């Protein structure tokens, strides 16, 4: 790890000032993602700004049906909050399955939303677009470590390489990593907004708009502007909601596919559906076809299955990850059934 300046502000204003100073900066909360990226030399912030010491950044507030979550709220606190479990089981379930108990004791909501992709090409220094090329030379973004290697001009590390965990949707472009925030899908499904405070003041955007598909080398998938800090997330509870994560291990592991749903009901029928997938596209992926398929129906094994099938229409898996199409179908079905308290098997 390289040397860096360290700031430990106690107010949002001071944090924004520190983040916005000259040179690169990064906000540090639990550190479970940032520190390992710094150790691996994937990021080299000149200044690290510790934000967990800012009191108003942490905490869960429920006022009527409006839920406000401080960005520095730890995942373990999301898991253990009784009212949140009642109103937003989709959020609780997603938080519960992140990492290990040790990680959930350190990691925060904001950190999970702003973590960088868990993609082995990115984590090996090849960026988010399958490797930057200068002519026929592939460049590794680790300073002083890598001589360019000769590759075909059409070479794409993810498309040509081991893409078992990569995206299956939106795969026409160069960004083929799978977006790996577990908390983005449930919050997007619930229509949450995020508050960002930066040098130019405060703005509120839908959580979905925190993300974009990077188009050029070095561009981030996060839309946060330089010096901006995510301070809180807010949503209005009401819809029935659930998250289903397919993961290989029971202990510390990343989701293979995650699906969150939020259903507004009209009696037994779904009048409005929101179905959001994680780990299947370079951004949290809204499965509109699944939303259309379930809307107007009673959620049953059959209708959930049909929605799962609708969700994967248009999927364009890569050479190795066709199996994630099956996982997606399953995750959508199970999340829908979970939202209405149904399981189609016991035990």
């Amino acid at each position, binding site marked *: 790890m390289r040397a860096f300046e360290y700031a430990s502000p106690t107010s949002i204003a001071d944090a924004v000032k520190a983040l916005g100073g000259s040179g690169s900066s990064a906000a540090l909360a639990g550190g479970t993602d940032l520190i390992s990226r710094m150790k691996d030399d994937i990021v080299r912030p000149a200044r690290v700004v510790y934000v967990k010491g800012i009191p108003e950044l942490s905490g869960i507030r429920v006022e009527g049906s409006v839920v406000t979550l401080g960005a520095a709220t730890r995942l373990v606190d999301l898991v253990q909050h009784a009212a949140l479990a009642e109103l937003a089981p989709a959020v609780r379930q997603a938080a519960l399955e992140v990492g290990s108990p040790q990680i959930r004791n350190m990691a925060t909501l904001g950190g999970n939303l702003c973590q960088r992709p868990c993609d082995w090409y990115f984590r090996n220094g090849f960026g988010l677009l399958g490797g930057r090329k200068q002519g026929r030379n592939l460049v590794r973004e680790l300073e002083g470590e890598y001589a360019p290697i*000769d590759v075909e001009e059409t070479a794409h590390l993810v498309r040509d390489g081991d893409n078992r965990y990569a995206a299956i949707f939106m795969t026409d472009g160069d960004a083929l990593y799978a977006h790996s925030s577990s908390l983005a899908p449930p919050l997007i499904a619930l229509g949450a907004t995020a508050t960002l405070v930066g040098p130019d003041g405060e703005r509120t955007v839908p959580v979905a708009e925190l993300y974009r598909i990077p188009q050029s080398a070095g561009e981030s998938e996060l839309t946060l502007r330089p010096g901006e800090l995510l301070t809180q997330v807010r949503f209005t509870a009401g819809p029935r909601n659930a998250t289903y994560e397919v993961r290989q*291990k029971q202990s510390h592991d990343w989701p293979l596919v995650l699906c969150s749903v939020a259903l507004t009901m009209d009696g037994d029928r779904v009048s409005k559906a929101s179905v959001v997938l994680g780990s299947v596209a370079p951004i949290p992926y809204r499965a509109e076809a699944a939303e259309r398929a379930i809307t107007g129906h009673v959620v049953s094994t059959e209708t959930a299955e049909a929605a799962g099938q609708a969700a994967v229409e248009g999927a364009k898996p890569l050479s190795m990850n066709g*199996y994630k199409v099956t*996982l997606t179908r399953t995750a959508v079905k199970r999340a829908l059934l979970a939202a209405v308290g149904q399981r189609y098997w016991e035990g």
Partner: protein
Amino acid sequence: MAEWPQNPRLISTEIPRVDGLGKASGRTKYPSDVHPEGMLFAAMLYSPHAHARIKKIDTSRAERIPGVRAIHLLAQEGATLRYQGDDIAAVAADTEEIARDGVRAIEVEYEVLPHVATESQAMAEGAPRVNPRGNVQKGRAQINGDPDAAIETADAVIEGEYSVPVITHVCLETHGLTVRWDSDRTITAWSSTQNVMGVSQELGGAFNIPPTNVTTLTEVMGGGFGSKFSADSWGIAAAELAKKTGKPVRLFLDRAQEHMAAGNRPSATGKIRLGAAKDGKLVAMIAQTHGTGGVARGAGFPLPYVYAVPHSRREHSDVFLNGGNARAMRAPGHPEGCCLMEAAMDDLAEKLGVDPLEMRLKNLPEGDFKTPIYEAEIRLGAEAIGWSKRKPRGQAEGRGPIRIGYGMGLHTWGGGGAQDKQVSCIINPDGSVELRSATQDIGTGARTILAIIAAEVLGLEVDQIHSNIGNSSFPPGQASGGSTTTPSMAPPALNAATQARDELFRRVGRAINEDPAGMSLAGGKLLINGKEAMSFAEACRKLGMMPISVTAGFSEGLTSSGVGGCQFAEVEVDLETGVVRVKKIVAVQDSGLILDMLTWRSQVYGGVIGGLNYALFEERVMDPTTGLFLNPDMELYKLAGASDIPEIEVIAYHTPEMRARGVIGVGEPPTISTAAAIGNAVSNAIGVRVPRWPMTPMNVLNALAQVS
């Protein structure tokens, strides 16, 4: 010569390991925890390329960093780097952080060379050569009988292609040592090794000093699994840095280089035709196999395995590629051979409509002493797992998308000891007792085992014996490999303790004018003609100023070799996700006379957990384009956590006949058949063979998709 006691007080009971509390509480110092006065930290620069030549290397910028004390080059200009992680240089500095800054400041100009990082790249026509003699090196075919004619006579033949990936040892304590020059011709090395004597020999050889001038200390160590026999290039580099700076130097690999350069278990792929008669009796096997040990040879494995195959032909090729070289890994070759053989056995049983358990019983080698042992073990295991609940493949029960499956596998191993090792037993006038030997505890409980033996002989409690191992200056002890430590060290320990006891009787007898023939030791007392005469400590005081010190070696009749064992798995597989949950493993194991039931069971648990990781999670992933190791971590290189561990039922096959065989090692056998049993259980659950390990959602769903 001594014999194992007929009615032991301690041996074969459950004795907690003597260093357990220190380890569990964190008090025990591992070699990587040892920080001698003035110590420098060293870090390695290793190849960022799969294949490259060093054109130029400039350390001047690194040398100028304040706190950087010395740099040692392991590769010179012009040298070829053969895989990502190959050694280049080591930097010693005041802190670990400065050492890493120093590593980053070394400027290397590389000429990048074409690579082959996957087996298919290596085996392709016209592929760049890793080995001048070619990337695919075919061994001599092993032929038994007339397989081509015989297989034509079989009632059923299956043809399958099965594969297991390269995995790495993932020692929790990475490879390395802390080394100090005590004079210009003497060294002390605190090494994380399974071979203290070997490390001394290598360091002595590297610096042209007698190995006896190098004291290697390994009080405890954090796992080796076959990868820590050597001082290694980085160990010698640390000693060079220590010599240059005149200060102790600590050099332990980082996790990434540990994965890349510190050894691995080779992959194995087999195209197997296996034929049997209607009744399940095997007729012939024809197999083409290959595997890769990276830039090194060593991907061989036994096949056919365990079962009697009257006619067989097996052709094997070693595939060379730009990956770290293989090293011995817990039961080298056997897990690979077991997975391939047992998968083919199950597929053939399925085709014949024979219960796979019956099929196995039918094909045990006739007349082999192990056959009745296997038969008994299979009965015990089948009972414990509930084999009668097993349904034929494709008819598995379950609920919703969950299917329950059962599978099994058999394994074999040697586990005999060496006959040239020694243990000293010292009885001091103050009543303290010490054992000494230049062996070490790789985790099996070697220290405890030796103490149990001495305590048994001397009528003392285990904690009254100071079991002193992990020091190369002691009498020659066994390197911990091949499940040989206990069978090599137990006989000399028994002989040394027995001879020391007899010497005690003689000298006490002389002092108090009693006949030694009437003396015995029990309950911490000296007995004369069965009557309590004095405490053990009092008896020792009769020694005056002169301790007893006896060094003894091997004798016949205390050990044996050759074990069997079987494992059974119960799994649940989700047909819609391909996720496999192992519910239960039953491990039945024989290994002659068991000295400590607790440490023995711990070996079996550890073996099963290693096998479960092999079955479900572990896989080295290489990138074809860059040739890099994509998951050199403990995150995307997946390993079971506590919640992934199922119920494990360990059954010791420890009959009077087994006890009479004497001591046999158990470190390796229980890790062999776990992955085979789990693979067969998955196939039983889902109705199709998953031909590729590990049993990931990808591999399971791909196998299901093949049939639908």
